[in-house]
């Protein structure tokens, strides 16, 4: 088992209990998704006022809800196309809220450079999701590039807990740009292969 695989396995123990509890209490998965988003907005507020450790703690709670909603839907056989759509839209809402919290903080501190870096990281994070969604309306799969949502969320937490948010924003920004480029290249290549001789 790899290092990151072992961490994932350890984290799954308490999450299984929470999934079982949600199933017993018959909580609808879409409600769990919404609760996760609302908690993430609180985390954004904590980032905006510079309380990073608090923000990190709130993000953990928010992302527990975000993680278990799909599993609860599966267990209760409530999975639906709308549920998937709702989950994706709420994920973007959560992500953008966190970035806006940081933009507010850096604007308050008069740090235009980090306002721009955070805005760029936000733009390419949204484009990471958009390029995949748009590509998969034309090709079967477009799962290339490193910086997806789970990586972004874990990095946000690491930045918050260890007070290294600037470095985290650089990593998210640069790797999101690379991920978007990967997805554009991969989609172009797959479409070119599917339609040889015609420009993609």
């Amino acid at each position, binding site marked *: 088992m*790899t290092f990151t695989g072992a961490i994932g396995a350890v984290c799954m123990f308490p999450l299984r209990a929470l999934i079982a509890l949600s199933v017993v209490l018959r909580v609808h998965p879409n409600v769990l998704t919404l609760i996760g988003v609302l908690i993430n907005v609180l985390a954004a507020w904590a980032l905006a006022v510079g309380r990073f450790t608090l923000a990190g703690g709130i993000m953990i709670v928010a992302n527990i809800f975000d993680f278990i909603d799909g599993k609860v839907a599966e267990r209760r056989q409530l999975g639906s196309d709308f549920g998937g759509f709702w989950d994706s839209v709420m994920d973007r809402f959560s992500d953008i809220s966190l970035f806006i919290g940081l933009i507010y903080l850096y604007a308050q501190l008069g740090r235009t450079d980090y306002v721009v870096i955070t805005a760029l990281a936000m733009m390419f994070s949204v484009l990471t999701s958009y390029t995949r969604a748009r590509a998969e309306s034309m090709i079967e799969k477009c799962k290339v590039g490193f910086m997806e949502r789970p990586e972004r969320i874990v990095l946000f937490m690491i930045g918050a807990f260890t*007070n*290294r948010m*600037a470095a985290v924003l650089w990593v998210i920004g640069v790797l999101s740009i690379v991920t978007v480029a990967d997805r554009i290249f991969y989609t172009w290549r797959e479409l070119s292969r599917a339609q040889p001789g015609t420009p993609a």
Partner: protein
Amino acid sequence: MTLSRQLALPLVVLWNALFWTYDRATWQYDLMVIAILAFVWLTPPAWLGDPMAAGPGLLGWLDALLG
């Protein structure tokens, strides 16, 4: 012959790191995570002009200790 085979080894490594196709929980993923964590935790915040971080970071601390 694929593009990767046409390139020299360092370029292949660079290409594979940039054009990322590996799954999570692979050794390549772990290596990338270690590289990211090293950047986040070792880079002195002053180098990045971090407006919030306190302290010099591990590299800055070592630099002060050795210098």
